[in-house]
């Protein structure tokens, strides 16, 4: 089979580079237009991962850094599927997450927020999707925290998500938010996204059917990566 191209990225639903209300973008945003590039083998390939790359406990943030007790906070299950724009599952792809603890504090030597560090919480996890594109993590719901943008800027509770897909063109880092969080509409980083539906798509939904009774609340979060044309033909080089 010859390789076929990925659908063009719809940049109207992604944040533009320059979003002055999120101040750090001012000096870090390219000013020239991106050069549009049709896919070559450099773009339609990407790293592949296997179970030898990660450990079975890596997706359990309740346990993967616990020293002598469980971490403090609301226990949650985070689960969903990685799909492409054709609604096909993306199997065996690496999903990595990182987050603050229940106090809104990150385990990072550069984070000096006064929220307490939790000795039993690292704040990162990773997993490979199964053959149906399904993944799940167990973790602690992160707390909101302030940041220096406007004087009174607060990040809604969020988890950072990094996904590979099967090609370098699908590489994506995003953040998931939690249904019902009143800080979401006020956040300058959320508001970098111009399309309200695209913002909704970043909000994980409470999933009572997947909760574990007397243990953990579940949230469902599906991730959609770029879709792909079918096989390339000699008389239709871009694929169908």
């Amino acid at each position, binding site marked *: 089979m010859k390789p076929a191209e990925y659908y063009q990225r719809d940049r109207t639903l*992604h944040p533009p580079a320059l979003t002055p209300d999120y101040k750090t973008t001012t000096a*870090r945003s390219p000013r020239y237009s991106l*050069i549009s590039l049709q896919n070559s083998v450099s773009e339609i390939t990407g790293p592949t991962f296997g179970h030898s790359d990660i450990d079975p406990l890596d997706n359990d943030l309740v346990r993967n850094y616990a020293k002598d007790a469980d971490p403090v906070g609301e226990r949650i299950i985070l689960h969903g599927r990685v799909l492409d724009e054709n609604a096909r599952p993306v199997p065996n792809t690496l999903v990595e997450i*990182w987050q603050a603890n229940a106090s809104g504090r990150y385990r990072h030597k*550069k984070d000096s927020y006064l929220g307490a560090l939790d000795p039993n919480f690292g704040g990162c996890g990773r997993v490979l999707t199964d053959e149906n594109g399904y993944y799940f993590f167990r973790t602690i719901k992160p707390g909101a925290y302030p940041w220096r943008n406007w004087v009174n800027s607060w990040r809604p509770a969020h988890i950072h998500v990094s996904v590979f897909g099967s090609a370098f063109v699908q590489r*994506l880092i995003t953040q998931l938010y939690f249904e019902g969080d009143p800080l979401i509409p006020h956040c300058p980083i959320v508001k970098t996204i111009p399309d309200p539906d695209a913002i909704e798509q970043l909000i994980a939904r409470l999933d009572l059917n997947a909760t574990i009774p007397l243990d953990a609340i579940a949230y469902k979060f599906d991730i959609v990566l770029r879709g792909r044309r079918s096989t390339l033909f000699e008389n239709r080089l871009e694929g169908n």
Partner: protein
Amino acid sequence: MPQKLDYLRETASQTAGPYVHIGLAPGAAGFDIYGQELGRDIAGPNARGERIRVEGLVIDGMGSPVKDALVEVWQANADGHYAHPEGGGPVEEGFRGWGRVITDFETGEWGFDTVKPGAVMGRNGRMMAPHINLWIVSRGINIGLNTRMYFSDEEQSNAVDPVFNLIEWEHRRATLIAQRSDRDGIPVYRFDIRLQGDNETVFFDI
């Protein structure tokens, strides 16, 4: 109403934030958690070809080094093959071609060791000059930036590279060329990435 096109829409990007290291390089954040951090060995021990080092800075619009960025690397082996089922051919055992480096918190310098990639078959049978694909994320970058690094000692292949020649502004092509020098017998390529300002690096919408 006409029928619906029943496609899904890609999930929107968000900034990787200042603490991207926690998720992707926790050792740099100051703690050990995983048995192995991914993306540290790009070429592996068995890769043929010239061993090289690549170094640079990510520079913002005020001329300051960005000290909290993460750069991912994707490259072919010396034969021009990627480690992927559609990568053009076999690669050496242990060759992954993918790497992940962070900028130093004090100096902003980043760097990695690898092998020099070979020329890669491009669209319509046109060869692409040896290059390394880079993806840059950090606080203040709303969607990861894609660029390519070409090699200063590949003048002839660069001159006919189809992607290079797509850049209409010839003076901007120079922003994609890493300059080769020698340090203790190892070739070192210098590649500074300028996010903005004079000599802003060419970034691609792939």
